[in-house]
């Protein structure tokens, strides 16, 4: 994920492609760079703040809210206190809602919503598993339905299904096949501008586990 976004930033600045809103492009470019470099919870928090600022002044762009949510979700995995993790995941869901108001019926936002609910579920999987699991599967499934070529939807669904298969001791073949398919989709996707392109590492992780 990191490498892919770095590639984007370098490509972007080297070609000097400034679309209509130059300030927006510059701000997002810097923010994406910081996001790619983020190594700690504080870094991700700062990245989320930056994207939130951009979102506040960019009407009609859903990506700032998208990345604010993604930063917060990732930050939550660095924390240990359940209540704080819930707070970040809830804030991420607020950003996703704002993004959906700007860009409804967006497969990327469905995937992100599933990811935010996953962040909430892992706070206490024993208690929350039954409650959140079906909603998570539903969001990934809907994303796959909306955009069958979206690699993130397939990769996240594959990881979700692999987790289930491991817990219940059932056959992970379906999940592994999905992960393979998603890698192919990652390799052939051509996202424009700052459109999401993360997630190949998720597919790689699943494939690596499958090979064991």
């Amino acid at each position, binding site marked *: 994920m990191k490498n892919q976004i770095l590639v984007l930033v370098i490509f972007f600045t080297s070609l000097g492609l400034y679309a209509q809103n130059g300030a927006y492009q510059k701000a997002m470019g810097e923010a994406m760079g910081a996001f790619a470099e983020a190594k700690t919870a504080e870094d991700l928090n*700062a990245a989320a703040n930056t994207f939130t600022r951009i979102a506040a*002044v960019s009407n009609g762009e859903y990506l700032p809210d998208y990345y604010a949510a993604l930063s917060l979700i990732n930050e939550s995995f660095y924390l240990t206190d359940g209540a704080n993790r819930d707070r970040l995941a809830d804030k991420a869901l607020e950003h996703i809602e704002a993004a959906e108001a700007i860009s409804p019926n967006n497969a990327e936002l469905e995937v992100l919503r599933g990811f935010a609910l996953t962040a909430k579920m892992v706070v206490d999987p*024993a208690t929350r598993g039954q409650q959140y699991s*079906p909603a998570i599967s539903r969001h990934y499934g809907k994303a796959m339905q909306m955009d069958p070529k979206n690699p993130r939807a397939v990769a996240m669904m594959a990881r979700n299904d692999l987790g289930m298969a491991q817990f219940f*001791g059932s056959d992970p073949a379906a999940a592994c096949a999905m992960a393979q398919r998603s890698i192919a989709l990652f390799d052939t996707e051509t996202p424009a501008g700052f459109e999401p392109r993360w997630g190949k590492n998720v597919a790689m992780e699943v494939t690596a586990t499958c090979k064991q």
Partner: protein
Amino acid sequence: MYSKGTYNGSTTNKDGFFSFSTPVSENLTIVASCIGYASKEQIITNPGQPIEIILYEKVNELNAVSITAGTIDVSDKATSMVMKPLDIVTTAGAIADITGALSTLPGTATVGNDGRLFVRGGDASETAIFFDGLRVGNAYGSTTSGLPTRNRFNPALFKGTFFSTGGYSAEYGGALSSVLALETVDKPVRNQTDLSLMSVGVAAASTFVADKQSVTAEVAYTDLNPYQELVEQSFDFELAPRTLQGQAIYRHDLGKAGMVKGFLQASGSQLVIWQPQPGQEGRGQRIALDNTFAFGNASYKKILNKRWFTEGGVSLSANIDNTEIDTERYRSDNRLIHAKQNVVHYFSEALKLKTGAEVFVRNYGETDKVLDASRSLENVTSALFAEAEWYASTALSVRAGLRGNYASQTDKFTLQPRVAAAYKPYDKGIVSIAAGSFSQQQDARILLSGNVADARAEHLQLSFQHNTGNRIFRIEGYLKSYSRLAVKVAHGYHAAGEGYANGFDLFYRDGTTFKNTDFWVTYSYVNSQRRYDTFQTQVQPSFAPKHNLAVVGKYWIANWKSMPGATFSWNSGYTYDNPNLSGEMESLSANYAVLSLNWSYLWKQNLIIHVACNNVLGRENIFGYTYANQPDDTGQFQSLPQGQPAARFFFIGVLWTISKNKEANQLNNL
């Protein structure tokens, strides 16, 4: 930190310092915002000068300190650590009985031959049980002769349980000791059918989920007769308990605005048992019990707007017991209607006021079918309450309320103040205090003999909790005083009995010290005496053992997809009255000790096998003695021990979930 209307800004460092550049403009405004704090804007008049902004924590219900004194919140909230909903089905010894699982928590006593919930020196009637906020009459199955009963409700119905061991909110009334508020699941997860095949019976439930509505219907037949053919019983059953029960739940989701729920349960059960009489030969008395029970409940919650919320509902309970004792035949009929309406107003996110009104209509009748004589009573109790909750900061919460209770039968109006507060001295600690005045209507049998004023209790409790998320430690001390307990006089009862219950509870739960192991230890000490019923002096009641201990453990074996569990319950014994000795309740039974084990095995994704054994060591616990009414020829009152129905209880069940989603199972329906 950012300049309003621009991209320019930065995040502060750990010490709150920040710096960034932004072009000067007319109304240059800096905004400071942080999750959990109220945002602040500051107009810059002197660009280039250093700026200092102070943010105040935004306190609301979600991040405020919870009042922990006398409170155990069993839910999926990150802060609710004492007990989780899944614990009710995985705790050994309970076999998925809500009461059985809660009896391992601080502040409770296990009365093994009764099966109901006993809290801090109080008897079972002092705990009121609510279903989605509405009172249930007869929440336990009818039973007799020292045969323990169970809660009528399947724990799978509930998403959370709020259990108060004292000092509870002004919203609830009619209970001297505690409140058990069961909250049903809002949205079932998927269409599914659950089939249970158990050593004690069969059950089938089906759930249908549509966009905004859902219905679940369940039928269960429980019959201990086949089981008793295989396992020898100490009690003399002519017909072992059997119950046929049906229930249906309907939910209508009003979207963000709220929810409407309807619930209906009906059941019929029979049991026939021979009870030996002390001092006499033979099988003794033949007691037959035929119970019919119905409970219906409709409730709704609606968010009117950002600051107003309303909820309300009505419940109806009807319980008919037809009892035969040898040639005597009785019928008792207990009905309750409860209607309530609450309104909540948020003055701000940190200050809310809850007000409500409720009415209880009770109908009780007793008939002697042989003599064709009956007597009945009806009374109406109404109550109004107002309670304010103020979240002063993320470290201090205060709750103060007043409840006014009017009992029509005695034409008495009582005002009951209730206060509680919680303070966070440091990040992981909470100190909490709760106090209040409570009342409870006398038992229906007592009221049949004439108007007797409501019994009263006053509570004061102080608790300390340390919660690291994986480990929780609690200590709580309390003082309870009772007054106006019913004592028998020449022609009826007088509300003249007094008593007290003082003690402390210790609780420690740990889910992390030992790998894959979750365990908790509870110790409760109760020093309680009361003058009640036919006693002339204050005595320690039979349901308040002085020392109570419970140790519960669960261990997850991933490779075997199994979770074995164990529960050890112990108390220092129950008092009883021996007429051959002077004094009242002067005798003490031997210690009560029971070790129970269970094992859950996830055979397939949607198939669970559950095996349990209560009292594996087969200890013969004696709860007291029943004495003959008359002394024998030697002047002694003969006696019989009150023991357990069998040395051990075995259970095996297969729980199968059928749904499109193959990962669904009955993990929450053991």
